[in-house]
C-alpha cells in the first residue's frame, strides 16, 4: 500500500520537457493567431492597394521565398556559419573567463568594468573598424562581432552558476573532507552547467543578429544582411522580405537548438 503510494508520487513528479505538458490549445492558439494576422495583412494590403515599398503582401513575400529558395538557403548558410563559429568561440572564452573569475577574486574585480563596458557598447558598432583591421574580403570581422556579443551573457550566466552552490552541498563536501578539485568536479561544475546553457540560449539569438547586422557595414557578399540591403537597394522589396524570413528561420533554429540542449541539461535540477 505504502509502496504503491510512493511509486505513484514518483511517477507524478517525473521531470519532462515542458513541451510534452503542452495541451492542444497551447499548440493551436499561436498557430491560429499567426494565420489570422497573416490573413488580415494580406486583406489590408490588397484592399487598400498598399505599395510594396511600404509593405509587401505575404503572398508576394512567399512567392519570392519559393522562387529564390536556393539563394535564401545559401545566404542562411553564410550568416549561420559566421554566427555558429562566433557562438562557439565566444562560449569557450566566456566559460573559461568565468571559471577564472570565480576562482581568483582579483580577476573578478578587474573584469567588472570591462564587462560593464562591453555590455553597454553595441558590438556591431565595431564592425567598420574590424573590416579595416582584417580586410573586407573575409568573414573574420563578422565572426568576431558575433563572438564578442556572445561573450558577455555566457560569462555572466556561468559566473552566476558557479556561485549557486548551496550551503548544504558545501557543508556536505566539508563533512566528506573532499579536496578542492573534488568539490569543483562533483558539485561546482554540475551546479553551473544549466546556467551555462541559459547563457548560451540568450547568446544564440544575439550571435545571429550580430553576424547579420555586421554585414550591413561591409565585407563579402552572400550573407542574409548583404542580400537584404542589396534587394532593398534595387527596390525588390518582396525579395528583401524573403531574406528577412530566412533570418527569422535561422534565428529560431539557433534558439530552439540551444533551448533543447538547455532543457536536457536542466531536466533534474528543479528540486
Amino acid at each position: 500500500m505504502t509502496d504503491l503510494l510512493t511509486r505513484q508520487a514518483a511517477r507524478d513528479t517525473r521531470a519532462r520537457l515542458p513541451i510534452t505538458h503542452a495541451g492542444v490549445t497551447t499548440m493551436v492558439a499561436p498557430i491560429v493567431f499567426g494565420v489570422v494576422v497573416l490573413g488580415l495583412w494580406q486583406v489590408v494590403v490588397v484592399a487598400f492597394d498598399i505599395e510594396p515599398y511600404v509593405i509587401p503582401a505575404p503572398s508576394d513575400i512567399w512567392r519570392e521565398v519559393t522562387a529564390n529558395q536556393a539563394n535564401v538557403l545559401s545566404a542562411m548558410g553564410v550568416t549561420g556559419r559566421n554566427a555558429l563559429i562566433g557562438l562557439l568561440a565566444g562560449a569557450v572564452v566566456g566559460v573559461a573567463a568565468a571559471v577564472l573569475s570565480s576562482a581568483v577574486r582579483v580577476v573578478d574585480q578587474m573584469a567588472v568594468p570591462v564587462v560593464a563596458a562591453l555590455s553597454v557598447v553595441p558590438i556591431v558598432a565595431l564592425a567598420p573598424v574590424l573590416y579595416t583591421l582584417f580586410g573586407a574580403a573575409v568573414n573574420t570581422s563578422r565572426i568576431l562581432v558575433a563572438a564578442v556579443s556572445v561573450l558577455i551573457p555566457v560569462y555572466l550566466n556561468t559566473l552566476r552558476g558557479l556561485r549557486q552552490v548551496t550551503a548544504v552541498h558545501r557543508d556536505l563536501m566539508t563533512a566528506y573532507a573532499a579536496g578542492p578539485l573534488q568539490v569543483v568536479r562533483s558539485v561546482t561544475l554540475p551546479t553551473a552547467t544549466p546556467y551555462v546553457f541559459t547563457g548560451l540560449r540568450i547568446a544564440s539569438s544575439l550571435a545571429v543578429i550580430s553576424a547579420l547586422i555586421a554585414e550591413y557595414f561591409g565585407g563579402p557578399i552572400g550573407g542574409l544582411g548583404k542580400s537584404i540591403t542589396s534587394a532593398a537597394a534595387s527596390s525588390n522589396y518582396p525579395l528583401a522580405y524573403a531574406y528577412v524570413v530566412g533570418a527569422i528561420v535561422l534565428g529560431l533554429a539557433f534558439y530552439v537548438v540551444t533551448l533543447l540542449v538547455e532543457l536536457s541539461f536542466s531536466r533534474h535540477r528543479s528540486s
Partner: protein
Amino acid sequence: MSTSVTPAVRDAVSAIQVTGVDRVFTSRKDQVVALDTVDLTVAAGEFVSLIGPSGCGKSTLLRLVADLDTPTAGDVQVFGKPARQARLDQDYGIAFQQAGLLPWRTVAGNIELPLKLHGVGSDERRARSAELLELVGLSEFAKSHPDQLSGGMQQRVAIARALAERPKLLLMDEPFGALDEITRERMQLELVNICAETGAAVLFVTHSIPEAVFLSDRVVVMSPRPGRIVDIVDAGSLGRSQERTDEDRDAEAFFHIVARVREHLHGVPASGTRAMKAR
C-alpha cells in the same frame, strides 16, 4: 547523571565528548553568544537529542561536533580524537534538514558519493548502495533522480548516504523537520530500526518534543541567549532507544518524559537567567 547505556558500552571510549565549549559569533556591531560553557558526553551507541527553541545553539553544537565550525573556547572530541581529525577520518555520517541530494546524480549515485570521493571501487560502491537502498526501502528507485522522489523519500536517501561508510556516529540536524506528521512518525520508526541494526550513536537535533522523547536515550534541553544546557532528561524508563516501537508513543512513561521536557523548555525565562542552575 544517569544513562540507560549498558555497562559494557559505557566502558568504551565515548562517541562525543564536549567540554566547556563556547561559541561566540562576532559581527561588526555586537557579539552573539551561541553557546556558553556547554558540556556533553554521548556514549558509543547512545541516542541523544538536542531540543530547544530557535537560536538556542543546538544546530551550532552539532556543527561543532561535525567540525563544520570551530568553538571559540573549549574542546570537542569525537571517539577520543579532536573533531577535525574525526572529520578527516570520516568517523561520522551526517544528515541535514534539507536532504541536500545532488540533483544531477541518480539515487544510487547520491548514496555512493561519499564512497566515490574516498576512492572506493565501483563494484563495492554498487553493492553498498544496493544494500542501503534495501535498508531504507527504496530499492526500485536506484536509477531515479532526486526530483522524482517525494520529500520523505529524498530524506531516506540522505540517511542512506549518511550510513554509506558504516559510521559509528550519526549527526542529524532536524532531518525530519520538513516532513508531514505521518511520514515523520514512519521515518522515526525506521531510524530506530536502523540504529538497532548499525549500533551507531546518534546526535539528533529537533524542535519536536515527542520526536526527541520517542527516539532518545537522553534528551538534552537547551535555552537560548546564551545557548546553554538547561537539563538532560533521561528517557530510560521507555527502554533502550534501539528497542522502541509505535506502542511506546502511547505508554504512560512516554507522557511523563514529554511533560518533564516541556517543563524544562517552558520553565526557563526568556532571559535565560535560571539556566545557570542546570550546570
